[in-house]
């Protein structure tokens, strides 16, 4: 059995379901649990509770935005990032530094992933589900440009990029100009996709073999 302790950062996770991301990460954490990987999810949710243990191996940490109201998705997201950093740091210091890696899903918490990696030395994987260039193909708005900049930060600062398809891999390379070797494709439709995810996790942890 591989003993690793990932922390997953995602801006949606059930019950907060905005799009497909919540279902995907839910599916991923269930798979990791079946593989006996103790997993922590740090996500945003305006809950009166800060913590929930969903199973022996799955812990959820809720963060809510410390600033209200907001004027844009960027200001909302980036202040929330500082709170995410607080929550992850509390796990790190409170659990004897037992975080092997961060798996950041999409651009929302890229800033936290980058800063936590730089501050705590924790490896950081950027899982890309979609890109701003695909979601808003013809947009030249400053908002799109900010999101694009954060995605670029994610692919550049992370130790590894995981994506779902060869097509996405090609687009990431074209848009963000990173080497092929930095991206792995793990389609969640494949039977052994969790094994592939764990293998990818192990790649970024120093001295860790599957």
């Amino acid at each position, binding site marked *: 059995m591989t003993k690793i302790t990932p922390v997953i950062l995602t801006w949606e996770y059930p019950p907060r379901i905005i799009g497909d991301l919540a279902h995907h990460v839910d599916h991923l954490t269930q798979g990791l649990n079946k593989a006996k990987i103790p997993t922590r999810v740090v996500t945003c949710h305006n809950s009166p509770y800060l913590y929930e243990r969903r199973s022996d191996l799955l812990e959820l940490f809720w963060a809510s935005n410390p600033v209200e*109201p907001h004027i844009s998705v*960027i200001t909302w997201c980036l202040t929330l990032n500082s709170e995410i*950093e607080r929550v992850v740091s509390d796990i790190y210091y409170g659990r004897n530094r037992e975080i092997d890696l961060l798996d950041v899903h999409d651009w929302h918490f890229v800033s936290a992933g980058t*800063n936590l990696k730089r501050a705590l030395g924790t490896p950081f994987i950027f899982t890309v589900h979609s890109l701003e260039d695909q979601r808003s193909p013809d947009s030249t708005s400053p908002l799109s*440009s*900010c999101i694009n900049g954060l995605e670029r930060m994610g692919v550049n600062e992370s130790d590894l990029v995981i994506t779902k398809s060869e097509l996405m891999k090609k687009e990431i390379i074209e848009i963000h100009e990173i080497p092929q070797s930095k991206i792995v494709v793990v389609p969640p439709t494949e039977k052994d996709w969790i094994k592939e995810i764990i293998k990818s996790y192990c790649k970024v942890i120093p001295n860790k073999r599957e």
Partner: protein
Amino acid sequence: MLTPNVLMLAWEFPPRIIGGLAPHVYELSRALVKKGIEVHVATCDFPGAEACEVVDGVIVHRIDSYSNPTPDFATWVAMMNVNLQREISEIIASNDISLLHAHDWLVASASIGLKHMFRIPLVATIHSTEYGRRSGIHNDYQRMISSTERWLTREAWRIICCSKYMAKEINSTLGVPEIRTDVVPNGINTALFQTPINLEQLRARFAQPNERLVLFVGRLVHEKGVSTIVEAAPHLRGLNVKIVIVGEGYLKEDLIRRVSELSLSDRVYVTGFLETEIIRGLFRVADVCLIPSIYEPFGIVALEAMAGGSPIVTSGSGGLGEILENDRTATFVYQNPESLAWGIRKILNDQGYADYLRKEATKRVKSYEWGAIATSTIGTYMRTMVEFTKGKWKPF
């Protein structure tokens, strides 16, 4: 070891000067270094300025402040914080930084994130509040900034503000208990007001030799009460005065128009922006300096007038009432044109009284030298470090 290595976060530092924050951080950081504190300043980049340099012992890190387009100022601030935080992580790790000092809400997000990731204490200086700047909170944009200020003050171990007035304002608008607040006034470098320059020549640029020079220096905005000065001018008949209004702001065109309507163009001169050296010289040659502010968290202009030796007429609002004393270092008046004119007359018609105000102000301003301000700031740092050392919240 309690003496901390400090990293200050400020969105402006010379040569990037937007308002009063840049000179404050510049002078304070240099004074702290003179007292033996290692000080790093992380700030926004500026064309032509070095990315990293040592300024009088202060290690200045200028970080890409996000030059791409953003839809509004608040979004730019958010992206600027991302860039600051990313780069500062390495500065903290490689320089054994043990205390963070944030200046105003603009660096809140980066400061708070860094505090938690490195588990080092955070001190925040609140120079002014959104509530005070806008005379209330009127829309979501302002609400967001005010909420950010509240977040910063909640996360900071101690809050520094420049006056008791500000401590009360922070208490009432942001809910900060006064017990967590330290009042440390702004400082001044009085030596800068002694630089040898040709004062006669400077004065001649603004007033005739037989005219008494009445000076206002500040942003031309409502809260500074500058409109009252123009309205006071007609009440100064019989006095040969030249009123010189220095500064920029959204009221500038209104003021110029009003001067023209009142046929006061030969009596009131709205100069616009002037170089700092010229302004310092004006404080030295002015016969009266007017500070009729409606809202003033501190009132650094009062220290400048005192250092320059210009007798002051003031409303005494906010922090001004703590720096100045009526009939000792200034003449206090009401916020209306007649009262302001009365104060001007009182000084211009009584040379003995003017000399007394000048002499007392020159003595009093010494207590605001940056060395003294740095000592008080170190007091806040030490108190924070003692609390931090005793507590359990630590990296390991």
